[in-house]
């Protein structure tokens, strides 16, 4: 996420930038970051679940993908907690 461009837009060069415009910019940056994570997760689960791509996504493959997404989110929680625990 590019905060430096936002900071300069909000402060220095153009202090009268409308707040609405600023918030729109902020939201689009958040959406971009979110989309990036989404693409990355697709790659991880594709590697694990679709080892031999067929003519369509099979039932076991789609259930693997949903389990994979659930586990990845769980893994994010475990890693986050481990980092914060060590930081204290």
């Amino acid at each position, binding site marked *: 996420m590019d905060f430096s461009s936002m900071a300069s837009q909000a402060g220095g060069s153009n202090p009268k930038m409308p707040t609405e415009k600023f918030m729109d910019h902020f939201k689009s940056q958040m959406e971009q970051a979110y989309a990036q994570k989404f693409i990355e997760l697709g790659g991880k689960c594709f590697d*694990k679940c679709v080892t031999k791509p067929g003519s369509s996504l099979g039932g076991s493959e789609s259930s693997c993908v949903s389990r994979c997404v659930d586990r990845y989110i769980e893994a994010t929680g*475990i890693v986050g907690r481990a980092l914060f625990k060590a930081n204290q």
Partner: protein
Amino acid sequence: MDPSSLNTAEVQRFLNQEKERAMMNEMVAKLTSVCWDKCITSTPGSKFSSGESACLSNCAQRYLDLTLIIMKRFQSMQ
């Protein structure tokens, strides 16, 4: 938060706060990606095995150890 009530100082404080959060999220996301590849070798099941969750937790904490060693190494070079 009401966007119309923001003045520049508030915007800066808000940005700094979000910047810190983004950095933290970024680190967690990066580490999750790395540790996922290291620890989850089989197809994902409906639950993590105790070995898998321990590996994920250890992986994150060992990464912190590594960061410390590298920092000390760099400091001793100066």
